[in-house]
């Protein structure tokens, strides 16, 4: 029997949509479709009963499980987000330090045990001076300078003091007074810059005063204006001094030994030349070491005070709260989050891409396997 003329896919769609058949193959096809639809089996009663029993089972257990699952789906990401935010905020909310925070460098033993020098509140000109004088009993030794324990160790003391004055005239007078104070205490002015224009002004003066007069200098300079910032850096120099002293001793002994050998007249020409060259080197080294030690001792003998005078209002305290502080914190947090996201994207990008490609490959393989299965009359079962 000849093969029936095939019905095209488009024509089939038209026939399924209700178009009338126009020739024999289409009539047969329509008959086949009708047969499939009318002869299709009905669901057995057993299946209906099974389904009815299952659907009518208590729904409370199902609802309870899905309720807790939903709670977990919301709570877990929320908790993770909260934890991440807390971590980021705690990073931005580092203990606030003003300009007079504790300084770097080696600190003198015992200084850390005293009250932090930066806890002084600004705008306490008169109160500070009065407290200083009263606590010192008139000796000039204040709580501030008590951070420098009495010791014979060589130390390099750098101090920064910032004062606010009312106007340019007061600033100019204070600058003059500061320089006078340093001279009266046996020190000197290492550098100065004064700038007054109109009613405003600023001045930057570097003073060096003997370390033993530092307390007096602090008291007298603080009285010139309102303290807005202060800082102290103490670097121990004694170790360097001691090292150089030890080396000086050793090199001096080597020099003396070579001098004695040369004086003895027992060396042959070659030994004599070696001894003379060595003697020359050691004498030069000795000179350098002595110069270095002297420089360290000179540094330790005076303390440097960087005095800054200004007439502008005090800057907003770093730990100011309110809307401005909250907005700044928010921007800091957003910046950190954005940076973290970009960093995460850069790191995770290749990994995510690899995962996506792997997933696509697995999916394609799975589809091919399914297509092979569906290409069998009885997928997975024994063939006849």
């Amino acid at each position: 029997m000849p093969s029936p003329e095939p019905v095209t896919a488009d024509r089939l769609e038209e026939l399924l949509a209700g178009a009338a058949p126009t020739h024999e193959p289409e009539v047969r096809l329509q008959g086949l479709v009708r047969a499939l639809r009318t002869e299709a089996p009905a669901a057995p009663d057993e299946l209906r009963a099974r389904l009815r029993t299952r659907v009518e089972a208590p729904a409370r257990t199902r609802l309870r499980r899905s309720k807790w699952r939903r709670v977990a789906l919301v709570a877990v990401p929320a908790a993770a987000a909260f934890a991440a935010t807390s971590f980021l905020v705690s990073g931005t909310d580092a203990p606030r330090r003003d300009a007079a925070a504790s300084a770097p460098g080696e600190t003198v033993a015992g200084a850390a045990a005293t009250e932090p020098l930066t806890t002084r509140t600004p705008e306490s000109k008169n109160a500070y001076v009065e407290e200083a004088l009263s606590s010192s009993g008139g000796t000039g030794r204040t709580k501030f300078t008590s951070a420098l324990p009495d010791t014979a160790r060589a130390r390099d003391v750098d101090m920064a003091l910032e004062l606010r004055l009312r106007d340019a005239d007061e600033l100019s007078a204070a600058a003059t007074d500061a320089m006078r104070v340093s001279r009266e205490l046996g020190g000197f002015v290492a550098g100065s810059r004064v700038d007054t224009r109109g009613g405003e002004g600023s001045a930057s003066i570097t003073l060096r005063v003997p370390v033993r007069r530092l307390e007096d200098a602090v008291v007298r300079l603080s009285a010139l204006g309102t303290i807005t910032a202060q800082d102290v850096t103490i670097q121990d120099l004694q170790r360097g001094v001691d090292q150089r002293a030890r080396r000086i001793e050793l090199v001096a002994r080597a020099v003396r030994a070579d001098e004695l050998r040369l004086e003895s007249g027992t060396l042959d020409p070659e030994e004599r030349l070696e001894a003379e060259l060595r003697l020359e080197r050691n004498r030069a080294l000795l000179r350098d070491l002595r110069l270095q030690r002297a420089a360290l001792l000179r540094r330790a003998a005076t303390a440097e005070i960087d005095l800054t005078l200004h007439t502008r209002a005090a800057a907003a305290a770093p730990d100011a709260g309110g809307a401005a502080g909250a907005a700044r914190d928010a921007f800091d947090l957003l910046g950190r989050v954005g940076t973290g996201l970009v960093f995460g994207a850069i790191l995770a990008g290749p990994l995510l891409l690899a995962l996506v490609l792997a997933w696509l490959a697995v999916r394609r393989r799975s589809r091919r396997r399914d297509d092979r299965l569906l290409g069998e009359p009885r997928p997975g079962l024994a063939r006849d």
Partner: protein
Amino acid sequence: MTAFATPRPRTAAPRPFAAAAADHLEDVYRYLVVFTGDAAVAEDLAAETFEKALRWWRRFDPRRGSERTWLCGIARSTALDHFRAEARRRRREERFAPEEPAAADAPLPGFAPELEAALCTLTAGEREVIALRILLDLDAETAARLLGIGRTACSMRLARALQKLEERMTDAVA
């Protein structure tokens, strides 16, 4: 829809599952019977399908498709899981007992003998597209989406399946 039409709520609750199951049980069963070519297997798979559907009923979104299409999707994945499991079982059995006789097939109830015999000679994929387009009367686009193929490919697959079915029936009569 007019400008004053009430917008559809985002989370429109579907109707009770029992009603949907009762309405679509026949369609799902018929689809599985023709797809698997085995009435007994189709019954088990249909029960499993509705078991899954009952668990996932809250996820059903009427805006994304009809209940019948959603249930057929679950039925299809359930059947594919069954086929894969059977294939694995078959491979294990062949390793130990390669000459095991084939199990007797449950006939496809309801169909005429010639039609049943012809259907059993088609591949599962061909039977599937016939079940979806002819028995369930799904449109080409919906069936294509369920099968994961294009609309044109779906129509062509159906045309080839029906032609093959008719040839087998003609050969059987002859």
